[in-house]
């Protein structure tokens, strides 16, 4: 099942949004989750024409109650909707049963996210990642789908064969092929990261919940103009730019946002994208401070959940963005409530450009420390070439030319060690 062009664009097609809620949950939070589904549908290019909610425990056959499904089918007919989007994860049987009754395609939130990713995937690699995520989603369903469709029918010559396994095998083969292709791309990335580290760059990445304003902050801090919209998943391909921190070189990477209940297979498929975050020297965790504290906590919790096991003790700066929308007197109250989830908080407004100096100071404070060093190089061709290399790799505070070249120098420890390795013991 390829993602078709008209599916890819969303194409303004009419959809109905459906959500089942378990009893005794917070209605405000449920409304927020429904709003997120609306935003996701909008981001995929759909036009929601109807909504349906039900509070009950899941039904194994239809997810909602039988009566509600019939109500949904009626709604589909009256609004002439082309698709139904469920917030809840649907099993293959449920998908099949609901689409039989509603007579239109049915997808769940995860397939919707995949559609958005497929729509925005521009590079070869991101297309592969989307394909991998889609195939992984499809595998457990493959066998069931075929057997549901071919219940009465036997495949092969005279109907004696069986092609259910071969479809699943085919998917698995494609997964293996894409994985090996992505692995080689990952190796390229790793060597690029190692090269950047060797070059003296510190790697800083922007992480956070989707639509927190990461791209706007990225633009504000590196004077770039990447696409930043009030929309979920605007950024899918990580983008890196140089960040000037008063002489120290750092590379800032804008990344894909997190979302609640993002399944692990999707995180794994986007591993090489998310590695930009996991393997950086410092993470800027961006949060929308203009939201209610409970919502901020929920989003921080999702971000912490995605990060905690993979970042190996990398420091985090919590960037509370959009403070221009918050009354200054409320900031202390917000901090009191979210403090335990917000390491090293900094208040900024990426749109208005406020708080950038404080943010840069906080970044410098948490980057891997640079050593201050005094070197004595031979005044020779070799010494001069080392000196010019030093200019590239760190900050030269003072140079004095005499019988020997005396340098006061600041850089990463690796650079200092390399200078020592380059010079013969008697030359130091």
């Amino acid at each position, binding site marked *: 099942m390829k993602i078709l062009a008209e599916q890819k664009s969303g194409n303004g097609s009419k959809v109905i949004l459906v959500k089942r809620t378990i009893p*005794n*949950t917070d209605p405000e939070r449920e409304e927020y989750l429904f709003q997120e589904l609306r935003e996701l549908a909008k981001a995929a290019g759909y036009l929601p024409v109807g909504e349906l909610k039900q509070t009950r425990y899941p039904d194994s056959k239809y997810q909602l109650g039988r009566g509600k499904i019939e109500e949904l089918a009626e709604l589909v007919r009256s609004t002439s909707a082309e698709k139904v989007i469920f917030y809840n994860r649907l099993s293959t049987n449920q998908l099949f049963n609901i689409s039989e009754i509603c007579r239109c395609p049915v997808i769940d939130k995860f397939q919707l996210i995949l559609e958005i990713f497929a729509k925005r995937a521009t590079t070869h690699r991101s297309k592969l990642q989307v394909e991998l995520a889609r195939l992984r989603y499809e595998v457990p369903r493959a066998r069931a789908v075929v057997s549901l469709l071919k219940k009465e029918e036997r495949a092969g010559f005279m109907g004696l064969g069986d092609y259910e396994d071969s479809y699943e095998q085919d998917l698995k083969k494609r997964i293996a092929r894409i994985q090996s292709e992505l692995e080689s791309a990952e190796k390229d990335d790793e060597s690029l990261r190692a090269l950047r580290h060797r070059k003296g760059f510190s790697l800083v990445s922007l992480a956070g919940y989707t639509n927190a304003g990461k791209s706007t902050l990225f633009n504000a801090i590196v004077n770039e103009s990447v696409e930043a919209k009030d929309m979920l998943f605007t950024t899918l391909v990580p983008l890196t730019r140089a960040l000037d921190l008063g002489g120290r070189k750092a590379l800032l990477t804008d990344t894909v946002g997190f979302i609640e209940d993002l399944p692990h297979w999707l995180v794994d498929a986007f591993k090489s994208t998310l590695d930009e975050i996991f393997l950086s020297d410092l993470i800027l965790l961006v949060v929308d401070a203009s939201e209610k504290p409970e919502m901020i*906590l929920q989003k*921080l*919790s999702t971000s*912490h*959940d995605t*990060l*905690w*096991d993979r*970042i190996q*003790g990398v*420091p*985090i700066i*919590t960037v509370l963005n959009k403070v221009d929308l918050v009354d200054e007197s409320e900031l202390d109250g917000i901090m009191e409530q979210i*403090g*335990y*989830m*917000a*390491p090293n908080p900094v208040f900024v407004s990426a749109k208005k450009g406020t708080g950038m100096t404080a943010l840069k100071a906080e970044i410098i404070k948490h980057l891997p420390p640079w050593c201050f060093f005094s070197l004595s190089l031979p005044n020779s061709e070799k010494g001069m070439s080392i000196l010019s290399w030093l200019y590239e790799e760190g900050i030269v505070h003072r140079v004095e030319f005499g019988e020997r070249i005396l340098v006061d120098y600041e850089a990463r420890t690796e650079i200092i060690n390399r200078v020592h390795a380059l010079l013969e013991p008697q030359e130091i």
Partner: protein
Amino acid sequence: MWDIIAVDISGRHRIKGGYYMVCAAAALTISASYIEKVKEIKILPLWLKRAPSLLDIVQLIEDTADQLSFEGTIVAEKGDMYNKPKWVTESMFSRAFKYQESIAERRSIELVHHISLSSRNLLIKELQIEA
């Protein structure tokens, strides 16, 4: 900095003769993303002939935490409390209780999980319990 008591229970599956569970509780001081200090750790084993109920789990956690000489909010994994919503479990404890949220809280749970698991393995071996 916040004072918490991270708890985890190992062995909630049936073995020969019932359920042999070990609860580990650690009194910790944490910041938002790091464990800053490990102050004290206690473990408590429990034999049950029948499957543990939520109340048994709450009692076991309370008893283990009572052995510590430090105060703090009890932090546990949602799965340990049968995925019950926070308002249900909160009301069952005699002290402050919450599910893990921040990076430091998740690390703390990881720490006590390894403690409870390894102590249970040791006890099963030493006491020659048929698992």
